[in-house]
């Protein structure tokens, strides 16, 4: 019976040839092997996000008047609502963290070398989408922290030269954070960005499957190369990691349930020490400490332009790193990467533990 069904599908969709492809596919084994797991972890957490997000959608009401109450309802009245909401919030944060690790590990292993330029580009777009999902999702509970953090965040976007005020108005749906903001953030969070993420993720995964995992430069000249089968050996290892992550996610959600906070009051003054989510804090801190004027230019504008240039450089990295294109090392770029990590850590530290103004 099973064979008959299999044959029916195989005749139409060439399942055997796909199975043969996966059966032959291997994953290089070396001392940096562990970093390969982070792509899978990010994917797993994205799936958790989609599933828990759909469950939250059954009860969530995207309006300034009802959003907070509906999340409160989910947390207090809906069976296991507290768990679903907590898992959604925790896995969102872990997904961003995992995406950061995956990005930097690919950077240091120079996985963007030819022929994997497009894999890197789709990956960097995925990274931006993940950040966008975090930014738009943060406002949705409509609590005090998220409201004012979004206010500050969109205010910063308003400082972009020429088009800043338009971007701010488009993001907010008007001059201020209001009902119009929450509905468009909701649309972006549950429709636009997930579709974009799914599309880029599809491309990213197809490329990874077709081209295989990138080997670090140190492995190219290694005469004693090792590898393992992708299916089932690597995939089963992935499953172990996912199970452990899932257990950790459950533990975090139960022991440290995600707080709801106070309902946002648009007419109250911005509370002291308001900060965006931790993954944006380093940018926020940079803009905070940057001098008001640098030569003739506005410091904040220069900062924002700097972030824009850094983002562009990130996407275009496969074409910028001409040494990697020739399969050569360039320690300067690796040092630059370490400096960027240290800078992010330092700014994040200063934002949370430095002198508060």
């Amino acid at each position, binding site marked *: 019976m099973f064979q008959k069904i299999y044959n029916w599908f195989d005749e139409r969709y060439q399942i055997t040839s796909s199975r043969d492809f996966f059966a032959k596919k291997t994953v290089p084994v070396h001392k940096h092997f562990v970093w390969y797991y982070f792509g899978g972890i990010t994917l797993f957490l994205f799936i958790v996000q989609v599933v828990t997000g759909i469950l939250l959608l059954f009860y969530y009401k995207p309006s300034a008047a009802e959003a907070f109450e509906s999340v409160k309802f989910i947390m*207090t009245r809906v069976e296991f609502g507290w768990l679903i909401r907590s898992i959604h919030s925790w896995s969102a944060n872990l997904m961003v963290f995992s995406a950061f690790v995956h990005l930097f590990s690919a950077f240091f292993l120079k996985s963007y070398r030819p022929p994997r330029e497009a894999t890197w580009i789709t990956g960097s777009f995925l990274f931006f989408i993940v950040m966008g999902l975090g930014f738009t999702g943060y406002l949705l509970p409509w609590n005090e922290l998220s409201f004012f953090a979004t206010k500050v965040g969109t205010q910063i976007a308003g400082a972009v030269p020429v088009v800043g005020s338009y971007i701010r108005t488009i993001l907010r749906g008007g001059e201020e954070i209001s009902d119009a903001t929450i509905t468009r953030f909701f649309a972006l969070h549950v429709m636009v960005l997930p579709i974009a993420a799914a599309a880029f993720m599809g491309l990213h995964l197809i490329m990874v499957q077709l081209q295989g995992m990138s080997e670090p430069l140190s492995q190219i000249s290694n005469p004693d190369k090792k590898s393992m089968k992708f299916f089932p050996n690597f995939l*089963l*290892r992935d*499953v172990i990691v996912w199970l452990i992550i*899932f*257990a950790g996610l459950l533990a975090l959600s139960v022991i440290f349930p995600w707080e709801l906070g106070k309902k946002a009051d648009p007419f109250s003054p911005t509370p002291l020490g308001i900060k965006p989510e931790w993954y944006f804090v380093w940018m926020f801190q940079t803009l905070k400490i940057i001098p008001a004027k640098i030569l003739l230019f506005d410091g904040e504008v220069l900062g924002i332009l700097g972030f824009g240039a850094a983002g562009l450089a990130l996407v275009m990295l496969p074409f910028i790193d001409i040494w990697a294109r020739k399969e050569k090392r360039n320690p300067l770029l690796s040092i630059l990467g370490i400096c960027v990590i240290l800078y992010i850590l330092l700014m994040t530290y200063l934002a949370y533990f430095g002198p508060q103004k």
Partner: protein
Amino acid sequence: MHSKFIFIFIIVLAAGFTANLEAAEKDYCIECHKTLDGSAKEPTERIEGDVHFKRGLSCSDCHGGDPTKEDFTEAKDPAKGFIGKPKRGDIPSFCGRCHADPAYMRKYNPNIPTDQLAKYHESQHGKLNMQGDQKVAVCISCHGVHGIREANDPQAPVFISNIPRTCASCHADKEYMKEYSIPTNQMEEFEKSVHGEALLNKGDRGAPACTSCHGSHDAALPRAIAVGNICAQCHSLTRDLFTKSPHKAAHDSLGIPECEACHGNHNIMRTSDEMLGNTGQAVCIKCHTADSKGYAQASSMKNAIEALKGDIKESENAVEMAENIGMEMSDARFDLDEAKNSLTKSRTYIHTFSKEAVEEITKAGIGLADKAKDKGRKAVAEFDFRRKWLAVVVAIILLLAFAVYLKIRGMEKK
């Protein structure tokens, strides 16, 4: 030649016109007094902030005379209505020339009261003034002179938060008040009171000043019978409960002032539950003896309130404990807030002096506090339950992971 004469004629005409214009605009009272010293100069230094001056009035509108004349004998010609400085005792009627004239005052402000002079004559100040007392307060004693500001100007001495100090400038001066035989410690007491704290330290303009109880232009001693009405201006529910209570008739028959008997007057302190009952600082035992019904009522009301307070405290602890472990407790907080409202209400209902009325409210409060306590305890139990089940689920997941590990090991051994 002809045109030269015409030109000179125009210049002379223009110069003469300009000079006349300047003279017409010039107020020689101010110009001249500015050049003098001491008290003669002082009015010119404050006149620009004066509400009358800002509305286009000047010295001559009160003092008479002709301000367009540079020569002072011409300017201060009694034939031109010059009055000069009025006698202190005449000041109320001096100001009243305009301020008691509705037709005149309407030009400046259609809503301004014009009964100040009539009220003043009814006041203790006015009565003494009419008896020829030259020390008693007149308009300028409170409003100032030559720099008079509107009552809603924070710099005005009659601005609500400045009133106590304005009144105290005379009433707290023992030497000045010596001959009137009235106390001079009102300000000292008011500063320490709950009203003084709110008005003077917190800047709460809703808090009462001297005039809120005593009146302003008609300032008088509140007679014993009027005290309750005065307090009722703000504490209306409390007064309402009091008038329906048996205490009302008792106070009336004994001639005891209503609110003041327990709360005092200028030195009204923040109320506390210690004022109730039959121990320590309780005010009830000032009148009620141990064998009286009122004594027992006071004790019962105190017990009811203490029971509610104790229950709220327990509930607060239970809710806090649940919040500290991250449970969502806003519903319980809502119940707790309602229980606290019951406590506030029960404190107000003490003025019914009925233990049944107070107990009805405290019982409702205890019900709400118990509801919150129950939610807090259930949340803590739920948290424990979650942790236990978490341990089970995590163990199953890790077991599954271990099984996959064994599978890989077995597979790779072959």
